[in-house]
Each structure stands twice: as C-alpha cells, then as structure tokens.
C-alpha cells in the first residue's frame, strides 16, 4: 500500500529525515518508536504533505500514486489520515461543520454525491459511540478549549468518520488516561481491516498491548535504525535507546 524509498527531508535548511525506507502492506500495523527529536513527527508531516518540510530526495507511493506530487488535501482525499501529535485549535469553526465539509470534499473527489444530513448525523452518532466521544464536544469549536485527552479522542473520532486507507497516529496515546487509552485502542481495533493500514508513533509499550503491531521500527537520527516484531517494543522498554546510540556511534567509527 505504502512504499517509502530513501526519503530525505529538511526543515529550515536542517536535514531531519536522512533516507527513510518503509514498506507498509494493507492490513498491516506498524509501530514507529524512537527517541525525542529523531524525526517521527517529521516523517508523519511529510507523508501528510505539510508544506513546512522540504523533501530533498526519495519517493513515496500510495497504491501506485505518487504521494509527494500531491497537495495535502489530495493526499487526504486519497486516504491518508494524520492524527496530529498536537491538534490545532480553530475557534469559530464548529467541529461538526468541519467534519461535514471534510467528508463532502473527500466524497466529491471520489465522485460520490454529498452525504444527506440525516445519514451524516447517523454516522456521527455511530462513530461517537465507537470512540466514546462526548457528543457535546461535537458541537463546539474545533478543539477549542478541549483538554489534551479530548483533543486526541477527537482525532480518533475524525479518523473513524473519514475511514482512511492509511492512518498515521502520532503519539495519540500521550495525554490519554488509562480508560481513554483502552477506548481509543478498541476503536482502532474495530476500524482496522485488511483494506487499511496503520502507522502508530508512540513512546510506550502500553498502547501496543492493546493495538498489537506486526512490525516495530526504531527511527533514530532520521533513519530507520532497526526493525523487528512486537517483541522489539518490549526490548526497547527495558533497555531504552542507549544501546542504539552506541551501535550508531560504532558504525560511524567503523
């Protein structure tokens, strides 16, 4: 589904991604871990088409389509969804109006008719339930004054509504209380299918107890330094990243 080849990207002239390679197949769940500042959010931003980041080389293909040539909105319409690490507050835009607009923009792109209000509201109710998202929040301004956890839940609610092909969750678990973590994870598990894929960026094993990954990658200094199965996450939890840093140093010396 997703194929990232030797991706390099920089921000304000500083190279952050230094040749990332990653293959994601439909139905797959990939966890990306790695120390602070290693470039995880940058990778997510680049995939979503954030214009602040400049791609200097490499390729990204989504089901045969060249993602890097598309504007952010078209990537979303093709089925890329980024659950932001820091969702933006937009006072004055109501959550529900925003979702409806997004939904219809995506549908128009896919040559589908706009959704009837009734059908839309039914879906809202259904998905609210799925991620146990407080209905009162739906009518408020987008993320305005939401607590950290509410913002994260809103991301997952949007994910449920838009039903993307490729969902990238950037530290969605941080800021969630224990119950919320379970709810959000259950939500994701219900949403996963053999037609979609998830990239889950996290620092903690905890989330991966609920959403069991097929692969765990360690992003270090702008590159995938190690890939393994779900047990790699446990190993990292135990050992931290120091050994990785040592290994990288040795490699540099060699």
């Amino acid at each position, binding site marked *: 589904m997703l194929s990232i080849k030797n991706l390099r990207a920089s921000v304000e002239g500083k190279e952050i991604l230094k040749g990332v390679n990653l293959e994601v197949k439909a139905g797959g769940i990939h966890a990306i871990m790695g120390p602070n500042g290693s470039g995880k959010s940058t990778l997510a931003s680049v995939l979503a088409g954030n214009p602040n980041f400049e791609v200097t080389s490499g390729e990204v293909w989504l089901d045969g389509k060249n993602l890097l040539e598309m504007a952010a909105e078209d990537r*979303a319409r093709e089925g890329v969804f980024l659950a932001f690490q820091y969702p933006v507050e937009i006072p004055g835009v109501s959550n529900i109006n925003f979702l409806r607009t997004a939904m219809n923009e995506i549908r128009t*792109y896919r040559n589908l008719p706009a959704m009837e209000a009734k059908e839309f509201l039914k879906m809202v109710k259904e998905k609210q339930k799925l991620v146990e998202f407080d209905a009162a929040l739906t009518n408020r301004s987008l993320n305005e004054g939401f607590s950290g956890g509410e913002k994260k839940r809103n991301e997952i609610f949007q994910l449920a509504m*838009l039903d993307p092909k490729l969902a990238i969750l950037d530290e969605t678990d941080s800021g969630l209380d224990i119950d919320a973590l379970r709810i959000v994870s259950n939500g994701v598990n219900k949403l996963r299918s053999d037609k979609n894929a998830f990239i889950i960026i996290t620092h903690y094993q905890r989330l991966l107890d609920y959403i069991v990954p097929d692969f765990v990658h360690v992003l270090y200094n702008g590159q995938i330094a190690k890939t393994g199965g779900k047990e790699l996450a446990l190993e990292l939890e135990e050992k931290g990243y120091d050994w990785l840093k040592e290994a990288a140093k040795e490699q540099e010396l060699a």
Partner: protein
Amino acid sequence: MIKQITNSLYDQFIADFELRSILSNASESLALHALRKEAFKQFKQLGFPNTKVEDWKYINLSPFLKDDFLTAAEDETIVINKDIIDSAKIKKLGAYHIVMVNGRYQAGLSDTIPGDEVFVSPLAAAMDRPAFEAHFGKNVALDKNHFAALNTALFRDGLFIEIKARIIVEKPIHVIHIISSANTLFLQPRNLFVIGAGADGIIVESFITVNHPEKNAKVFVNDVSEIIVNERARLQHFCIQTGAEHTSYVHHTEVVQRQSSAYNNYKASFPGTALLRNNLNVSLNGENVESHLYGLYLVAGRQIVDNHTTVDHLKPNCHSNELYKGVMKDEGVAIFNGKILVRKDAQKTNAFQKNNNLMLSKKAVVDSKPQLEIFADDVKCSHGSTIGQFDEDALFYLKARGIGEEKAKALLIHAFAFDVTGKIPITALQTYINHLIEEGLN
C-alpha cells in the same frame, strides 16, 4: 478655510444655503433655523477636510467630491417596485419594513406599525414633536465634524423613529435605505431615533444600491443620525452596509445614552461602495450604562472603508466594549480609529477595545489606531490591534482532512469573523450576514 480642488462643490453649497435662507422654510422652527445658521457658519469655516486634518489623514476626498453634483435635486421619480423591496428583506427576520429611497421616506412601500407606541415618519413631518424639539441637533459637535455641519445646515428630510417609554418592541424595525439615481447626486439625509425611558427595540438598517433603469450616476451620501437611548432603555442597532461602486458614504452616527441604558451597535460592511466612512460617537452620559460596538468589514477591490469611533465615558460605573474585525482583499484600504475617552468623573469605568485584521492580499492596507484619553484614575481600560495572515497550522490541519485551499480559507475567514457574527443575537441576521460574507469573498 482649507483650500482644495473641491472648491466648486464648496461654493455650490454656500450658494445653496444663501438661496435657502431667502426662501426660508416656514415650517421650520426658529430654533432649527438658528441651528442651521450656526452649522453653516461652521461648515463655511471648515470646508471639506483634506488630508492635513488629523481625522481624515488617510483619505484623499478630492476624487470623490470632484463630480458635478446636484445638491438640491427635486425628488426623482424612481420605480422601486415590490420585487426590489422583497429582495432587500431579510428572510425570517419578521420585521416591520421602512423604505427610504435616496434619503426620502416612502410611505407607499413601508409597513405601518400598528398602535401609537412606535412612531415612524419623515423627519420633516416630526418637527413639532416634543422628542424632536428635545433632542434634535443637540448632540453633534459642529465645530469638529465638517460633514455633519454641512448636513445640519442643508438637510431636507430623513427618518424619525420614536419608541415610547416602557414599550418593548419585539419585532425589529428594518429600515431599507435605497440609493438609485440617473443624476449625479449629493444627498444629505438626516435621521433621529429616540428610544423612550425603559423601552426596548431593535433597529436594523440596511444600505443598498438599486440599478437605475436609465443609467447609474455617482451618488455621494452624507447622512447624520442622532440616536437617543433614554434611561433604562435598550437598543440593538444593526447597520448592514452594501452598495455599488458608484456610491460613497460619509455616515455620522451620534448616540447619547442616559442612565442604566444599553446600546449595541453592530456594523457590517461589504465590498462595493467606493468610499465608506463611518463616524460613530457614543456618549455614555449617565451611570451604569453599557455599550457594545461590534464591527465587521470585508474590504475588496479598491474600496476604502474607514471606521472612526469615539466612546465617551462621562459618568461613573459604565461599561463599554468594542470589537472590530476586518478582512482585507485585493487593494482594499481600511482605517480603524478607535477613541476611548474617560472623563474625570467617570470612575470605575470599564472600557475595552480590540481591532483585528486578516490580510488576504499583499496589496491591501490597514491603518489601525487606538486612541485612549483617560482622565479618571480608577478605570479598567485595554486596547489592542492586530494585523495578520492566515494561521498556517490551522490551514494545514484543515487540508490534512481533505478540505481544499479555497474552502479551508473560507472556513478560517468565517471563524475569524465569528467573534463578531457570533455576537449577533438574532439568528436570521446572523445567517444573512454570513451569506453576505460568502458573497463578498467571491
């Protein structure tokens, strides 16, 4: 006197006044006659303002005043039919409609308000009413307001609205001001609204241009409205300003509030009108007065929109709040000048002011100037002004959900305007204004 290219128009007004003095209008009182004379003296001295006058330094008026105006035109017979009026109505507002064409009250097109609790008539027909005699011309500083002085000297007619004491008027009074002319006109309508003690009302004024069947000539409107909000009265006052490029306006609104009254002014202006100058002066002349001034201007093309407001706190324990928001397109020019005056007696004043501008174009210009003059010591005052572009993070967030550039921007503009539109307590008006924003953006 200030020399300028507009001398010919100036001379024309001098001649007009002299002619009128000879033909002196018998129906006008001696007091009004004296007021006109005084106003004329002031205008003769002041002339039209040029850019050396502080309050006019950003506007070069000469291009707007150079035309051959008819200044004392007889009534034109214009066909304003029901369809035009219907299209100017605001859906679901459920209002009484009062129609003014080129500054003149149109009885045939206006609704009659049942009962005698609300009195609406042409101004010229209200001159013998006590409310007229008590308030007319008492509040405008003629020595500082070039245009208001000219209007006072030479106005012919306009609109008079009186809401009697303790009357609560549930239905809004919607005044539709229509401009339509095949002759180049300089119009000087004059209005007086008096809200009786303890009364409560809603006045919605919309300003529109209607195509004249022959041709559309330039029209310059110099209108003055005096509004008296008596003790414990409440007035919600909406001004929705649209219009075509061949129209220019200098509006002067003078509001006087008495003790424990509340006045809310909502001003929304949209692309079209070449020049729009709004002078809005509110005197909080009594204790426990509350005033809210909300403004929204969407400026496009080469439009010039200038909002000059003065909030004058004269007495203790009053609260004023002002929020003006501007959306700037193309080569639009906007000026915001917000003066807050807190007089020595006005202890325990709360006075807030904010002006925010969203620039959609690099060629648009905004001059924003707060002006605080505080002579009391126990006051809470704040002001702030910003000029900014789209929040890139917000824009990206919307796009990352599949919303295209144009739609995303439109959403953010509505959100920006929402601080003002969200304050409109009447849904029908909110919807109407949101619709005008949408139209104005395209």
